[in-house]
């Protein structure tokens, strides 16, 4: 039985970390220091996180199967999916870049979806299974998520640089929008998930 803020009737401000005592009437309150709305847990954490999770899973499919980049030169038109782009780097002997793109665009989004799926399912089931490890997984998911944006930036730079007056033309393909959406949705998913939900069942266990 651990003493938690929830059990002691205290509220921790999510923005400035001030520990507050809520007003006696039990109504809504804002943080007296920074004005952020105070909640014992992020409101509707699981419902919101699940929604972002499911949307991200659906969009993950077009993001990987549709062309991400379409380039036209005087001699050829090529169109590549994200994995196809990785293969081009690999065949050109740019192994490091191929590995970076593969990790950022394929491994990280997939690992993130898998990890969030496990975190959400165990929190939903009020599991008390390895909470410390799950808390660590959450911290990792939260820090690596943004690196998936690399591919979008490469696309933007290519479009800006390669234009018909020079060597050809590059346009980003139809996969870009769903891919960007997956990055955003997984970020929203991990932001709306409240890691304290991992520990609540542990605190309530007899």
């Amino acid at each position: 039985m651990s003493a938690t803020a929830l059990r002691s009737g205290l509220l921790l401000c999510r923005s400035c970390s001030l520990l507050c005592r809520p007003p006696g009437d039990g109504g809504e309150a804002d943080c007296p220091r920074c004005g952020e709305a105070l909640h014992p847990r992020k409101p509707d954490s699981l419902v919101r996180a699940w929604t972002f999770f499911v949307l991200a899973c659906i969009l993950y499919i077009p993001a990987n199967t549709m062309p991400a980049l379409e380039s036209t030169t005087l001699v050829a038109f090529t169109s590549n999916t994200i994995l196809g782009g990785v293969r081009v780097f690999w065949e050109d002997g740019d192994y490091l870049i191929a590995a970076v793109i593969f990790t950022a665009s394929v491994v990280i989004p997939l690992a993130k979806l898998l990890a969030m799926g496990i975190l959400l399912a165990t929190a939903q089931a009020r599991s008390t299974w390895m909470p410390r490890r799950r808390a660590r997984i959450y911290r990792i998911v939260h820090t690596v998520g943004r690196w998936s944006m690399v591919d979008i930036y490469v696309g933007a730079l290519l479009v800006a640089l390669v234009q018909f007056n020079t060597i050809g033309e590059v346009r980003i393909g139809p996969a870009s929008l769903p891919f960007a959406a997956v990055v955003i949705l997984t970020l929203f998913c991990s932001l709306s998930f409240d890691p304290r939900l991992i520990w609540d069942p542990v605190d309530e266990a007899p």
Partner: protein
Amino acid sequence: MSETRAIVACPECDLLQEEVELGPRCVAQCARCGAQLFRRIPGSIDRTLACLAGAAIFFLIANAFPVLSLEAQGLSNSATLLGSAQALYDDDERLVAILVFMTTVLLPGLEMGSMLYLLGSVRMGRVPRAISFAYRLVEAARPWTMLQVFLIGVIVTLVKLRHMATVVPGIGVYALAGAIVMISAAVSMYEPRAFWARVKELRS
């Protein structure tokens, strides 16, 4: 509403713990889940402010000069931070363009500007007027600033195009690298507790 003292709650597992006195540059971690609770950084406000000022100058330069230039058949074409978002916008990829603009220009700029405003005011002995708005803006913008990721994108683009054309890194990319180093330094020196403690002193 009243503040409670000497007790902290872990933001990640909700466990209540007694505050401990920390030595300089030490970190207090949650006893149960290992999350970072707070740190003690001597001169946090001054040091963060110094690094931020440097970061802001680098960031302005990074925005003013091209990050990459491409030369082929006697013609050249260059891309700036803003220009790459602009190119997508003109190409009718509006949503992706807005995302690129927000994560590389708007939000990093707002985050740096707000932090300079908050810490700068406190440094000059005033409680900033828009303190709660600016503070929450910084906290909300943080997960969405991706300058480091953009820099990796520049490097990947450089490698990708080198077989087809001459690609030259511009002043912008060096300034961007400088900004990233200074921002990381600022973040490592920034301790919200030191800021709020100073605000409390100023208010009383």
